[in-house]
């Protein structure tokens, strides 16, 4: 399984990660190693087998769509790297 530089860069972009040149080379090697190993799944007898969606084959779990007030707004906001007037602050978008 060959992974190209362009592919890694594309994947990193999808994942919102910047990779330095030396990181790209390292991750290509790692990824190739792991994918070569992971390829074994293609030998499994999966003809006509359904995909699992998790562990249990459960029904949907519903709950009432009710608004619950979180009692401590300050505690929620204390982790925000930047905030103003009780709101999360980000750089100008438009």
């Amino acid at each position, binding site marked *: 399984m060959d*992974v190209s530089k362009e*592919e*890694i860069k*594309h*994947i*990193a972009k*999808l*994942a*919102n*990660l*910047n*990779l330095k040149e030396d*990181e790209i080379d390292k*991750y290509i090697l*790692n*990824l190739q*190693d*792991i*994918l070569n*190993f*992971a*390829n*074994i*799944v*293609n*030998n*499994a*007898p*999966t003809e006509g*087998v*359904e*995909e*699992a*969606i*998790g*562990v*249990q084959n*459960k029904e949907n*779990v519903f*709950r009432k769509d009710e608004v619950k007030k*979180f009692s*401590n707004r300050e*505690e*929620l906001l*204390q*982790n*925000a*790297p*930047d905030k103003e007037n009780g709101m*999360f602050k*980000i*750089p*100008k*978008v438009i």
Partner: protein
Amino acid sequence: MNITDLTVHELMEKLEKKELTSEEITKAYIDRINEKEKDVDAFVTLTTDDALKQAKEIDEKRKNGEDVSKLAGIPIGIKDNMCTKGVKTTCSSKMLENFISPYDATVVEKINEIQMPSLGKLNMDEFAMGGSTEYSYFKKTKNPWNLNKVPGGSSGGSAAAVAAKMVPWALGSDTGGSIRQPASLCGVVGLKPTYGLVSRFGLVAFASSLDQIGPITKDVKDAAMLLNVIAGHDERDTTSAIVEKKDYVKALKNDVKGLKIGVPKEYFGEGINEEVKETLEEAIKKYEELGATVEECSINVADYALATYYIIACAEASSNLGRFDGIRYGYRTKNYENLKDIYRNSRSEGFGAEVKRRIILGTYVLSSGYYDAYYKKAQQVRTLVKQEFAKAFEKYDVLLTPTSPTVAFNIGEKSENPLEMYLSDICTVSVNIAGLPGISIPVGVDKSGMPIGMQLIGNHFEEETILNAAYTYEQSIKFKEKYEPEFKK
């Protein structure tokens, strides 16, 4: 008597008979932490002052005849990926270095309800990704049996702290072996419950369809007791199962007569250390002597399980870790001009190399062009793995395997070779893929004195069966009385 040598059920008895107070117990553990933590490095955050304060309050309540739980005042340690209100929850990541959760995880609520003082938050591989605790952003935890060896991972801090007797017991989490493998490498007991038995609410998600919280303890009875505390339905976790409340301690009968044990041959093949095999063969003989029937069997798709696991776990991780964007919580880069920069640079600077590796792998297997070849295929294999185990449990009550293919390896030995590190999960991952319960107990040591673990796998929600099987063997070999970590340097 050394307080820190006692199991929790022994401590509980002594509390009841008023031979010990919570304060004495908590103090003994704090003294032990002060003595051993500098060698072991198991904690990310210590909360010993609060623990002692709480212990004194509980003694006061007991003295005044107030109705408190039998376990009240017995301390615990918590893996640092479970949210604790007011105390940092870092996931051993730079990304969450200063994160203070505004709420408690359900398991933490349950512990608080019983009033078990928390001694602190325990080290782990960053975001629970790893098998050695070397991928922690903060520190490398050492194996108490030999300080040059890894404790396993990702719950390496929890297992090392229990082995070093710095906590009476601890909570860990297990996505592909992260409770059982470190328990095995540190010579303690680790139980991964059936998927859905313990609420994941407030557990920082790695791979949501595989993650499960469970106990790491000195013996099997303690594991049953801690499972009693944390099991139960929770509507805040939609995958939480609705099952009747059980008393798992009652399941410990010290009797395996008539128990049917299957030994899947795929778990004794290439890559499994000879001494590990020999030790398990002794266990098999002993089970037969004790009246169980043991038979070789086969889990046909076991060879595909590890690859399937890494595809599914990384895919889910790449999605789960998308939330770390430097806006609402977590690390934010200093280096940005626009919003996109904040996302990218915060993630690139905040995540460590292994986390990025898994996000990249996960994004790759989910990306168009590769989805069918990897992710879809892996989900089909997952169905096969579930079917194979279901077939095995028509015939057997318990499956017996090694927990880890080898004993603890040296620090630095595998950290630069991700694939090699992944191979240390080979015996444990299929249990998560199929959502089954699995327990690891120590069954011996190798020539160098490092502990060897045995894994017992049960059918869904059959924790009682594996706990009893583990307990019965534990009673017959008395590992804990024969061996003890030596903190070799």
